[in-house]
């Protein structure tokens, strides 16, 4: 029912990612500030308000950096209309292997190559955050051999590619119930996150042992503890407090603008439930190892055409 994938990046990223431009070191939303007068007054949904404020600021930034950077984008893609945060459910690796009479491990490896390509494209095209659903809480029920294989694949990937992340200014964050992972793997993750925490060009969030329900429950437990200690009242709990406790607090852009699911399955499968409230959903028929630049471009072009009204 679910997919699983390891997340290692190849040396080829060095050659493919564009050089940093001298004018674009600041985070986009800090560059131009203008009083926003037409943001709705309703205090009832802070998520929507923040999304609208970001949208207004980005519209102001169009002319500033659009002209010079557009040459790196494929025809049809507009930089100002790119999603800041793309989330991907990488489904179809095992099916891909079965269709070719290959062992399941080959499917995962093919999926890794696909992930590398998408990470390169995100860096090249200026997408700031990519979240991938690598291993769901439900995946623990898979055969033990398969789970162990995946864990070792993850560990190897981290060990091999740390240098690349540092060199390419990529920040890695791992979210999920990490206490269930082997101790050595947990330490690797902590070290990698620490080593890359100041990298600002691109962030790859890898969801391992994760589920949307788990994320909300752990946020709730933290808040309940604060309430128990008298730091807050239960009635103080609001969207903003929950957002601050969700696992996606590790990023400046916690809400995906676009969710892509491959392999023709039309479900969210318990991935980032809270954070996907207003995300545009794109369902691709191809299996994840076959999801390349052409398919990614199709998803981004479809995203550009969507009219996001946030209930207004």
């Amino acid at each position: 029912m679910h997919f699983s994938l390891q997340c290692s990046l190849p040396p080829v990223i060095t050659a493919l990612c564009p050089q940093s431009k001298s004018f674009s070191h600041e985070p986009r939303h800090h560059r131009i500030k203008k009083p926003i007068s037409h943001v709705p007054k309703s205090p009832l949904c802070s998520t929507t308000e923040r999304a609208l404020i970001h949208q207004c600021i980005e519209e102001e930034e169009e002319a500033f950096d659009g002209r010079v950077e557009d040459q790196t984008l494929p025809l049809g893609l507009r930089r100002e209309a790119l999603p800041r945060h793309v989330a991907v459910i990488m489904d179809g690796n095992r099916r891909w292997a079965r269709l070719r009479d290959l062992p399941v491990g080959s499917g995962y490896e093919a999926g890794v190559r696909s992930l590398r390509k998408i990470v390169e494209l995100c860096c090249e095209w200026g997408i700031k955050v990519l979240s991938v659903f690598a291993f769901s809480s439900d995946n623990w029920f898979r055969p033990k051999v398969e789970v162990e294989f995946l864990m070792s694949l993850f560990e190897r990937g981290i060990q091999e590619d740390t240098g690349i992340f540092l060199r390419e200014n990529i920040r890695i964050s791992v979210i999920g119930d990490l206490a269930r992972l082997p101790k050595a793997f947990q330490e690797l993750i902590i070290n990698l996150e620490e080593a890359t925490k100041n990298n600002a060009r691109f962030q790859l969030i890898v969801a391992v042992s994760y589920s949307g329900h788990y994320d909300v429950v752990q946020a709730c437990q933290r808040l309940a503890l604060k309430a128990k200690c008298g730091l807050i009242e239960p009635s103080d709990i609001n969207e903003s407090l929950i957002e601050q406790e969700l696992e996606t607090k590790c990023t400046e852009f916690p809400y995906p603008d676009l969710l892509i699911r491959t392999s023709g399955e039309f479900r969210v499968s318990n991935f980032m439930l809270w954070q996907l409230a207003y995300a545009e959903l794109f369902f691709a028929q191809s299996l994840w190892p076959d999801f390349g630049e052409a398919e990614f471009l199709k998803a981004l072009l479809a995203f550009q055409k969507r009219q996001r009204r946030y209930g207004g």
Partner: protein
Amino acid sequence: MQKGGVGEKMLKFLFRVVRFLRKCIFSVLSVGPVPAHIAFIMDGNRRYARQHNLKEGAGHDAGFLALMSIVIYACELGIKYVTVYAFSIDNFRRRPEEVECIMNLMLEKIELMCRKDSIVNRHGVRIHFSGNLELLREPMRDAAKKLMAVTANNSNALLTLCVAYTSTNEIIQAIQKSCEEKWVENQEPRRVGRGPINLLEIEKQMDMAIAPDPDIVVRTSGENRLSNFLLWQSARSYLFSTLALWPDISFWHLVWIVLNFQRNQSRVEKKNKQV
């Protein structure tokens, strides 16, 4: 007078024939798995009004008729739970005139549904309101409570109207209630708090705890997003998007939705067996 009587009899006969044909088709559909719960994001009412050059509110009026039709079809097919996204908390950001128009329309329709001979009562449909009803004006709140009371004994199906609702608001309210319960436990001298809040405790406090998780979430008018609807409950739901505007949704759309669901279910079962 006789002519009118004959005409009326013909019409009734025609309705019976159409209903019989519908039941035949539903019997065929029932060979496969029938969803227990379908949720609808009723999108496209305003666009419908614009397309047909109707005045503001007429699109939502047509949308209500579509809703009643879907409720009838759901009862005939044996779908026990239908949930609809009638009015989001985000919709309060629309123009005040539009919000006022929608609220007045909802009030009018609620009063209509309270009648003994209303479609919901004739088909044994219980109504439940999900959402932050405190955000509504008192007459609307009272009307909603009255409708819930009037239909409380209906047991054929449950129609949940999500009004002044967002999923994030629902989750926050559930968390607040869970925390308050824990807080009270901790205050009582002889009782010790039972440990951290868990998933089941939060789910128990949700407005939507009255129904199982939806098997299918349908969005009309071609958009592909959940717009803060049933985020918690739709974690594993089959998501279906149709280009039809909500007032245009028909019996055939429902048949197509259920067929696609059945095809997807057999694929999921096959995939699970291969794990």
